[in-house]
């Protein structure tokens, strides 16, 4: 923790967990979708559902989905902005007894038809955790460059990905592997100390047995 975690962030109020964190959840979802979203269904759980309206959690998530940052002064007017951009959304609530109290589940559709289902929670102080993508546990914070690889559950893919990263001098800070029982595929989540070059990501996406590659870089300007 450095001194700018104490003074700052510069943010639109009222709550670092229910507003700033919610903006980040929307923003990370948009980035993970990989294209401009046109439609969203947002389900709020726990304290997000109970106090979200008063905290502007609904506006905050939409603002993030539209690519705004936590200090964007347009956040209070975001419903009008969404309408002008022809962005469709609906809100509901969901019970998730096992999840963190501040959790949202978002279904997102992009302009070329890409789809994403994400579950994320706001941990306080503006920090977030992406819990699940397309129903599979991923558990990353979005504070590091993050690579998410969906691949067929067969040996060799971990080695391919890790050797590609070391070849590019990218250091792996944290790695997890989760399996989806139904689909017979696995999801690798890698948080790295350095950003990953885009040609490396597209090379990976074309390998046999790799189903989908998603990359999130927090330092990239939107």
């Amino acid at each position, binding site marked *: 923790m450095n001194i700018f*975690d104490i003074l700052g962030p*510069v943010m639109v109020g009222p709550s670092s967990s229910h507003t700033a964190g919610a903006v980040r959840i929307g923003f990370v979802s948009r980035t993970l979708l990989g294209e401009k979203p046109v439609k969203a269904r947002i389900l709020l759980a726990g304290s997000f559902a109970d106090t979200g309206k008063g905290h502007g959690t609904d506006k905050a998530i939409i603002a993030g989905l539209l690519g705004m940052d936590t200090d964007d002064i347009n956040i209070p007017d975001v419903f009008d902005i969404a309408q002008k951009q022809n962005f469709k959304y609906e809100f509901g609530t969901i019970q998730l007894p096992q999840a963190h109290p501040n959790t949202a589940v978002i279904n997102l559709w992009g302009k070329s038809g890409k789809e994403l289902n994400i579950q994320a929670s706001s941990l306080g102080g503006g920090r977030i955790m992406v819990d699940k993508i397309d129903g599979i546990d991923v558990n990353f914070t979005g504070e590091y460059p993050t690579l998410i690889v969906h691949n067929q559950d067969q040996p060799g893919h971990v080695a391919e990905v890790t050797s590609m990263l070391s070849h590019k001098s990218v250091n792996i800070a944290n790695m997890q592997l989760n399996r989806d029982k139904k689909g017979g595929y696995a999801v690798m989540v890698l948080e790295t100390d350095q950003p990953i070059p885009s040609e490396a990501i597209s090379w990976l996406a074309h390998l046999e047995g790799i189903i989908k590659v998603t990359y999130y870089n927090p330092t990239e300007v939107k």
Partner: protein
Amino acid sequence: MSFGAIKDIIDLCEKNEKNFYQIILEDDCKERDVTKEASQEKMTQLLDAMLLAAFSYDAELLSASKMVGGDGGRMEAFRHEQKGYCGDYIQEVMAHALQMGESNACMKRIVAAPTAGSCGVLPAVLVPLFHRQLIDQQEMVEAMYVAAGIGQVIASRAFIAGAAGGCQAEIGSASAMAAGALVYLKNGSAKQIGDAVAIALKGLLGLACDPVAGLVEVPCVKRNVVGALNALSSADMVLAGIKSAIPVDEVIDAMKDIGMKMDVSLKETGKGGLAATPTGKKLKDDLV
């Protein structure tokens, strides 16, 4: 490496004959691997954001729940009538604390210090000094380093979030940070800064986080005033030569102890204290 004790900062100041601000600045340069200029530029950006927030208050705005809004304007108008008990500077401090707290509740842009709920305390004491040209931009920036350095120790030894340790952790920490900054601005020693932190924090130990309907509005906005005035009285006591009987780091540990023992209904869940009063519950029911 960042500091785990206020005493470590005081010792470094004394050993190297440097002031509190210089030690925190140097530590930030090491911690984030940046130059002094880059660090100061970042702090100056925060100062700009803080001043912008302070001077863009809109007394017409109400929060989404309609529970807060307009009080900062009322206080400012009353100040000009010169009828109250507190002097002009104190009343300006009160107005700024209310205004920043209300701006936050009304979704305006603020600087968390250390949190959004307590964002009014530090600017409330600093901005009127700047406004009256009693301190310049460089002194504002230095005071913010001092405040941030104090907050960092509190965060690492205890907590700074209401959900973790009650309001003592938010308004209490903000008040302690402001008290230290105020002593620094009057050329107080590092040791005196530590005493001011201790006295300010002691005054707010045990404060529960019990916001009505779980919203950062009631009692949060007015508690920013309490935090600011407590910072001023703590700083003045120290400048008068008064010391804290309990050393500052032990006070921070006491806050942690109290926060750990505090019931979860008093930690930002909106279930205990003021939130659980008949009126508090009614206000919540009226929202939905």
